[in-house]
C-alpha cells in the first residue's frame, strides 16, 4: 500500500492539468487587471519623464504569483505566456510580439526560481524574479526599441525605475496577495504534496 501511494506521489510531481489550468486562469484574471493597469500606467506617466515605469512591475506579476501559489517548475513561464495569450485571444495587434516578450520574461523569472531549486517562496526571491524579468525585458527592448540609443541618463532612469517597481510589485505585493489567498484557504490544495506527508499516512 505504501509503495502504491509513493508512486502516486511521484507521478503527480510534474505539472498536472489542474496545475496548468489554475496557472492559466490565474494569469487571465491578472490579464484583466492588466487592462485596467494600462490606464494606471498612462496616468502615472504624466508625473515626470519615464514615470510610467513606476508601475511597470505589474506586467511581471503573473509569473511570481503563480509560482508563489503552485511552487512547481514551469508555472512561471506558463503564467507569462497565458497573460500574453489573452491579448491574442481578444484581437490585440501586438499579440505576437507580446507572446515573444512573455517567453523571454517568463524564462528569466523561471531561472531565478530554478536557482533556488523551486524551494524558496519568500518575497525576496519573488522580487528577484521580477527584477530578472525586467532585465530580460531590457534585452528585448534593445533589439525591439533601440533603447541603447537613448541618452544615457534616460536608460539609467528608465530601467532602474523598472527594476525597483518589479521588485516591489512582482515581489512584495504578490507575496502579500499570496499570503491573503493562503489565509482564505485556497492555496493549500495547490501545493505539491511532500513525501513525508504521504509517509505520515502510513504510520
Amino acid at each position: 500500500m505504501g509503495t502504491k501511494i509513493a508512486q502516486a506521489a511521484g507521478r503527480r510531481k510534474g505539472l498536472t492539468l489542474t496545475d496548468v489550468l489554475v496557472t492559466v486562469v490565474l494569469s487571465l484574471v491578472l490579464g484583466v487587471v492588466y487592462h485596467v493597469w494600462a490606464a494606471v500606467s498612462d496616468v502615472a506617466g504624466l508625473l515626470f519623464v519615464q514615470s510610467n515605469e513606476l508601475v511597470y512591475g505589474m506586467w511581471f506579476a503573473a509569473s511570481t504569483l503563480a509560482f508563489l501559489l503552485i511552487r512547481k517548475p514551469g508555472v512561471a513561464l506558463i503564467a507569462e505566456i497565458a497573460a500574453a495569450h489573452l491579448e491574442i485571444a481578444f484581437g490585440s495587434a501586438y499579440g505576437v510580439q507580446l507572446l515573444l516578450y512573455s517567453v523571454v520574461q517568463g524564462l528569466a523569472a523561471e531561472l531565478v526560481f530554478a536557482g533556488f531549486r523551486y524551494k524558496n517562496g519568500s518575497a525576496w526571491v519573488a522580487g528577484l524574479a521580477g527584477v530578472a524579468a525586467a532585465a530580460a525585458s531590457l534585452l528585448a527592448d534593445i533589439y525591439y526599441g533601440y533603447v541603447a540609443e537613448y541618452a544615457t541618463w534616460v536608460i539609467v532612469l528608465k530601467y532602474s525605475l523598472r527594476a525597483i517597481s518589479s521588485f516591489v510589485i512582482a515581489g512584495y505585493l504578490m507575496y502579500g496577495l499570496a499570503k491573503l489567498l493562503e489565509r482564505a484557504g485556497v492555496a493549500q490544495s495547490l501545493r505539491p504534496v511532500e513525501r513525508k506527508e504521504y509517509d505520515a499516512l502510513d504510520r
Partner: protein
Amino acid sequence: MNGFFAPARRTALHRANPALKLTLFVGLFILTMLTHTIDASFYLACVFLLLLFAASGYPLWKTALLVSGFALAFASASLTMILFGKGSEIWWTFGPIAISKESFYRGLHLGFRSIAFGCQGLLFVLTTTSTGLFYALMQRFKLGPKYAYSFMASIRLLPMTVEELRVRRDALAVRGGGGFTPFGALLRLPERYALPLLAQSIRRAQRTAAAMEVKRFDARSRRTYYYSSPVTAADAAAWLLLAAAAAAAFWLAGTLPVFGLGDMRTGL
C-alpha cells in the same frame, strides 16, 4: 465574443493551418526586427498595411477602425527616441530634451516598424481563431493536450470572472465599500477585489480541471481530435503571399528610396 470579430469573407490566410501560420508570422516578426534601414521599415509598414486591408477578410470600415489605433502606437514608439535619443547633429534643445537629426529619423524608423509589427500582428489575429490555433498546435507541433485544453478552457471561464467583478463592484457600491479616505480605499483594493476574484477563479479552475482529468483531457497517447488540422494548398498560398509582400517591401526600398539613409543604429 460578439459578432464584430467575424470575417465577412475567408481568404487563403483564414484557410491556412494556424500553427504553420504562427511560425510564418514569428518569422516575419524577426525579419522586421532585423530591419535597420528607414526605407525598408517605411515600405514594410506600407505593404503590410495594404495586405491587411486586402487579406484580412473584414469590411473596409472595420479594418480602418482597428488600424486607427496605430497612430497612437506610432507616436509612443517614436516620441521618446525623438526627444531623448543620442545624436550629434543637434536641431533643437530645451532642458533635458535634445532633438538631433539621428534621433529624429531613428524615432520615425521605430514608428514605421511599430506599424509594420501592428499590421502583421493584426493580420494574424484577425485570420486565426483561438480554438483553431490550439488544435493545430496539438496536431502539428505535438503540444501537450493538457496545455492546449487548459488554454481553451480558461477563455471560457473568463466571462464568469468578469461577471463576478461586476457583481462585486455593485455589491460594494450598495453596501458602501472603501475606506474613509480615497487613499485608504486604494489600499484596500487588493483585499476587496483581487482576493475574492482570484480565490473564486482558482476554486472554479480546480473543479473544472478535476472534471477534465477524469475525462482524460490530458491523455497523450492514441487520441483523436474533434477538429482535424491538415496542411493544405492554402498554406503554400499563405507562405507565397507573405514572402512576396516582404520581398516587395525590400525591393521597393532598394529601387525607390524615400529617405536614403543608412543603418539606424550607428548614426547616419
